C-alpha cells in the first residue's frame, strides 16, 4: 500500500518525547493540576492504550501530544524538535503532516462527503488532484468504505463514520495517530471492529497509535498500556506485540 510503510525501517525510533509535562488550570482561586510532571516516550510503531478514571487528565495529555494545546511547564519534542518555541503556524504544519487525530464523536465535516472528508488534510497541504484522488481511494478501500465514498456523514452509521475519521487521520501518512475515546460512541461490537482496524493499520504501516479509553475491553489491544491517575502517568504492561518489535 502507498502510505506509512516507508517508515517501517525506523520502527522503534523516538518520534514523540514528552518531558516533565505539567498542565494546570485556574478555577476561581484554585489551581487544578490536570497533569503533574509527566514523562512519556512514543516509539515508532507503538500501540499505546491509555486508561484512567474520568477527570484523570487523559484528554489533557492527548491534547498536549497532538500540539493543539501547550503545557504549563515541560516540553514536548517531536522528532527531537522542541515544540514550545514553535509558532501556531508551525504547529499547524506539524499537525497536518505528521499527526493524525481521531475523535470520540467522529467530528466529520457534515457538508462534505466521506471521500471529501478524507481528502480534506490533503487539500490543506495543497497536494495535486490526481494524488489526492489516489490516496483517498486507497484509504477508503483500507477502511472498507469504497462503496460509501459519496455519502455524507449523516448518511453513515457511527462505525462507518469512525472509519472515515480513521481514514482521514491516516491520509497524509502521519507518524502518529492520537485517538480520544474512539469507541465511546459505538456499541461494543462496532467498537471492536474499529479497534481491530486501528491495530491492523498499526501493524501493517507501523504508524504509532495512542488510544485513550475508559473501556477495559479495548485495553486488550494494547501493545503498551499506560495508566493516568490524578494527573500522574504510570507505565503498565501491555501484551507486548508492537513494543517488543524493536
Amino acid at each position: 500500500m502507498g502510505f506509512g510503510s516507508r517508515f517501517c525501517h525506523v520502527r522503534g525510533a523516538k518520534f514523540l518525547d514528552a518531558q516533565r509535562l505539567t498542565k494546570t488550570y485556574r478555577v476561581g482561586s484554585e489551581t487544578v493540576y490536570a497533569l503533574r510532571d509527566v514523562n512519556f516516550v512514543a516509539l515508532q510503531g507503538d500501540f499505546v492504550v491509555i486508561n484512567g478514571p474520568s477527570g484523570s487528565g487523559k484528554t489533557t495529555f492527548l491534547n498536549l501530544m497532538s500540539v493543539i494545546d501547550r503545557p504549563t511547564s515541560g516540553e514536548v519534542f517531536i522528532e527531537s524538535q522542541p515544540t514550545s518555541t514553535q509558532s501556531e503556524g508551525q504547529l499547524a504544519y506539524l499537525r497536518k503532516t505528521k499527526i493524525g487525530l481521531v475523535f470520540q464523536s467522529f467530528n466529520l465535516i457534515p457538508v462534505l462527503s466521506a471521500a471529501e472528508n478524507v481528502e480534506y488534510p490533503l487539500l490543506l497541504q495543497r497536494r495535486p488532484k490526481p494524488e489526492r484522488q489516489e490516496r483517498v481511494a486507497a484509504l477508503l478501500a483500507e477502511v472498507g468504505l469504497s462503496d460509501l465514498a459519496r455519502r455524507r456523514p449523516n448518511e453513515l452509521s457511527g462505525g462507518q463514520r469512525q472509519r472515515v475519521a480513521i481514514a482521514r487521520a491516516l491520509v497524509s501518512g502521519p507518524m502518529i495517530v492520537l485517538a480520544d475515546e474512539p469507541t465511546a460512541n459505538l456499541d461494543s461490537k462496532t467498537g471492536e471492529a474499529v479497534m481491530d482496524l486501528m491495530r491492523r493499520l498499526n501493524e501493517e504501516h507501523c504508524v504509532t497509535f495512542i488510544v485513550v479509553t475508559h473501556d477495559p475491553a479495548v485495553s486488550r489491544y494494547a501493545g503498551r498500556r499506560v495508566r493516568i491517575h490524578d494527573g500522574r502517568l504510570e507505565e503498565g504492561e501491555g501484551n507486548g506485540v508492537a513494543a517488543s518489535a524493536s
Partner: protein
Amino acid sequence: MGWRLPLRSLWRNRRRTLLSLAVIALGTAVSLFVLGFLENSRFQIQESTVQEYGNLQVASPKLWKNETDGYDYLVSPRDVARLASLLEMEPGFRGSTSELQFPGLLGTGRETQVIRAIGIEPENPVLDFAEHAVAGRGLQLSDTASAFVGRTLAERLSLSVGSVIMVTLTTVNGAYNASPFTVVGIYKYSNEQFEQQVVFVPLAFAQRLLNTDGVDRIVISLDRIEASNPVASRLAAALQTDGTHLAPRTWDDLSPFYRQLASYFNALFAFLSLAISILVFFIILQVQTLAFLERTREIGTIRALGTTQREVFGLFFSESAWLAVLGSSMGVALGALLVAAFNAVGIQWLPPGTIEKFTLGARIEVKTALVPFAVSLVATLLSALYPAAQASRLRVVEALRIE
C-alpha cells in the same frame, strides 16, 4: 482551500441563508429603485435645463460675475463672429444663436408689470420657444414689434393674440425708450415664474430699441450633453489666447436649480444607501455570528487537523463573500424588475410650481446599477470581518470541548 466548503457551508442552513440573501437583495433592490427614480428625475430636469439654457452660453465675464455697469458687458458683432469661427471647428457643434436680454415695464393701459424681455433670433435652431405656443405662433423672421408672451402673464393681464402692449426700457446710453408691441403668440412652459416674466421679442428690434449692435450672450447647442464641459474648456482656452474677453458657461453652471437638485438627490441617495447598508450590516453580522457560533466544534476540528487561523478566516470570509455576491446580484435583478414594473404602470404626477403633469419613471444603466451592487457587497463583506476573525481566533481545545 477551494470554493467547495464555503459554498456548501452556506447551504447547510438553507432557511437562514435564504433569509440573509433576501435581506441583502431587498436592500440592494430598494436602493437601486430609488437611485433609478432619482436618476430619471435628474435626467428629465437635465433635458429641460439644456432646452432652456442650451449646452453652453458665452458672454462677457462681467455678466457671469455680476459686475456689470450699465450695458458694458455687451458682446460686439466682431466678437460674435470670432466665436462663430471657433465653433466651426468643434466636431459636436450643432448651432448657436445670440440673445439680448433687458428689463422693462410692460403696460396694457390698465396695468403695468415688470418683465424680462429676451431678444431672440426668430426661427433659430437652438433656443426657440415656438414649439411651446398654445395660442398664435412663435416669432418669425419678418417680425419687428412682435411679442411672444407666457400663458401666466397673458392670463394675469388678459392678453390675447393681437393685443397691443407698451414696453418701456432704458437704452444703453441711459435714455428712456418705449415702443408698442403686438402679441403674436402665447407660450406655455413648465416653469410658472418663467411664464410670468419672460417676453420674447425679435433680436434686431430689441437692438434698435436699446440703441446697440451688441448682444449679451451667445447660446450654443451641441449634439451631446457630455460634450458640454470639454467644449467649454476648449473654447475658454481659445478665447483666452486670442484676447477675446468672453467666457463660456455650461448649462449646469447656468442653472442653480439643477445644481442644487443634483446635490440634493446625491445626498438623499447617500443617506438612503447608508441607512440600508447599516441595516444589512447588522443583520448579516448577527446571522453570521450565529452561524459561526454553531460551528465552533467544527472549527476546533479543522484547526486540530492543521488548518491555520488564516485559512479559517479565509473559509468563513469567503462564505460571506458568496453571500454578498449572490445577494447583491439578486438585488440588482429584483431592482431592475421593480423599475420595469414601475415604468410599465406609468404614474402621473404634478410637481409643485409647475403646470404640466409628468409621468414618473425610473431609469437604470449599468453604471447606476453598479453603485447599489457595490454598496451591498461592501456592507456584507464588512459585516463578515468580525465573525470570521472571531472564528479564526477560537482556541482549539476549548472549541473541541463544545458539544
